């Protein structure tokens, strides 16, 4: 199971998975919302490329449709919508002061190790590419959760949530060679609906507590403690 003995396709998929993992780390350490959304779009682009690569090498035409869907939703539509909301609510100049950035990063690294450790048992039953793709996508999911914990802005939470979905999508594409078309369409529209719903939630949170900083939610007690 040496990398030298793998074909070019496997190497390319492995590099893609490494880059997807890297974008997750970049998101984790990003305090500016617009840049966070940009990195999210970059992750979507990497997913699109991976899907296209799978479609090409497995000769699986319906994956091209999936790639086009991913591109239009995760690279263009959702980042565009989030960006518009950030600009409308005038939050693009705020830099979120991340607490314990370094320890969060190192925590992220240990999550990555952890996800490899968890997937160690399936090593014997699966191919190398499957194991790595699963491990990286599991760590993308965990890093998305960590992103949601460590950031305070609601927009960052949405990006974290979407990147969790990215991780699952990556695992599905690489390990099953593409899900049935119906499932993919369903997931794509779920994501779309979720994005629209989040937009409405933003409005509601903003009108009720006058900010999107979820730490302020703790102050919603009837009586001040």
């Amino acid at each position, binding site marked *: *199971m*040496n*990398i*030298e003995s793998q074909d*070019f396709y496997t*190497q*390319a998929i*492995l*590099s893609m*998975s*490494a*880059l997807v*993992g*890297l974008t997750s*780390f970049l998101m984790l*350490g990003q305090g500016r919302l617009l840049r966070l959304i940009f990195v999210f779009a970059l992750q979507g682009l990497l997913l699109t490329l991976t899907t296209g690569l799978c479609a090409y090498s497995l000769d699986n035409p319906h994956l091209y449709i999936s790639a086009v869907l991913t591109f239009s939703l995760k690279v263009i539509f959702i980042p565009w919508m989030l960006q518009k909301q950030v600009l409308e609510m005038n939050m693009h100049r705020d830099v979120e002061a991340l607490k314990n*950035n*370094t320890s969060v*990063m*190192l925590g*992220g*690294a240990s999550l*990555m*190790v952890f996800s*490899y450790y968890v997937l160690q048992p399936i*090593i014997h039953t699966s191919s*190398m590419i499957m194991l*790595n793709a699963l*491990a990286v996508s599991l760590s993308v999911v965990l890093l998305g959760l960590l992103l949601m914990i460590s950031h305070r802005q609601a927009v960052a939470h949405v990006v974290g949530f979407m990147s969790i979905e990215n991780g699952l999508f990556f695992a599905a594409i690489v390990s099953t060679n593409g899900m049935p078309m119906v499932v993919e369409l369903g997931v794509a529209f779920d994501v779309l609906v979720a994005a629209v719903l989040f937009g409405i939630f933003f409005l509601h949170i903003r009108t009720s507590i006058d900010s999107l900083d979820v730490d302020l939610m703790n102050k919603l007690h009837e009586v001040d403690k």
Partner: protein
Amino acid sequence: MNWLMAIIQTALFVALAPLLMGFLKFCKCLLQNRSAPSFLQPYRDLLKLTRKQPVISEDASWLFCVAPYIIFSAMILAASVVPFIAIDLPTSAEADVIVLVGFFAFARFFLALAGLDIGTAFGGMGSSREMTISSLAEPAMLMAVFTLTMTASTTNLSGAIEHVIQEGLILRPSFVFALFALILVAIAETGRIPVDNPTTHLELTMIHEAMILEYSGRHLALIEWASALKLMLYGVLISNIFFPWGIAESFTLSALGYGFLAISSKLIVLCIFLAFAETAVAKMRLFRVQEYLGFAYLLGVLGMLSHIILESTR
């Protein structure tokens, strides 16, 4: 023959370092809408400085006068270790990549001592900042380099580069991480813009300049030359480790010429990239440097991890 080649190559390396600096300045000036000085300006500056009489403070000890020579010779030794045009060098068999990092640390140690020696506030401030940054940058650099050396299972730079060439084009996830880590470390260590501004003399922000503020004349020339060498060393290291194609594997004239062309075009591309980065990015606050270098270390660790987990034989 091999030793002769090593000496010629090192001499070329040392001679071309200011040219790289000049080219970098040229690119930056073009990008920032300023009229650019000629490529040869660093050579003229060095010549001017060597002609001038050095002014040495009364409080300076012998260390202050000796330090520039030590720093410059450490950099020359470092330059002799890194394969520049050809790979099969006897010098890199003598000293491996850990010694290279040691040379950098050695030069930095004396530079910091020289900054402290004169007793000015700026010198001490610069030294303490430099040591802080380097203590964070060195582990990250070692991590990035270890990724390479574990892949090639040798710490000898020539051997490692030869290994990469012989394998041909293999997309390695670990190299992607190591490349990014090494670029971040190189920017921090050579004092380029997000970490330190090489052209500033503003007291609150300078790091490298603060240490060498008291130097003048030929001492300053040697130190400037040494920092140009350091920039080139990192450039050559990055381009030859990660994109080694074109480097001469034998000592025939055509192979050497081809190798020289290859390394110069790689350095030119790297310079243009660096100039773009320096124009687009603003200098960060000193207290954010640890986050930046923490990120570099993280990338190094990820590279190592993905080497062990993704790539090695099980």
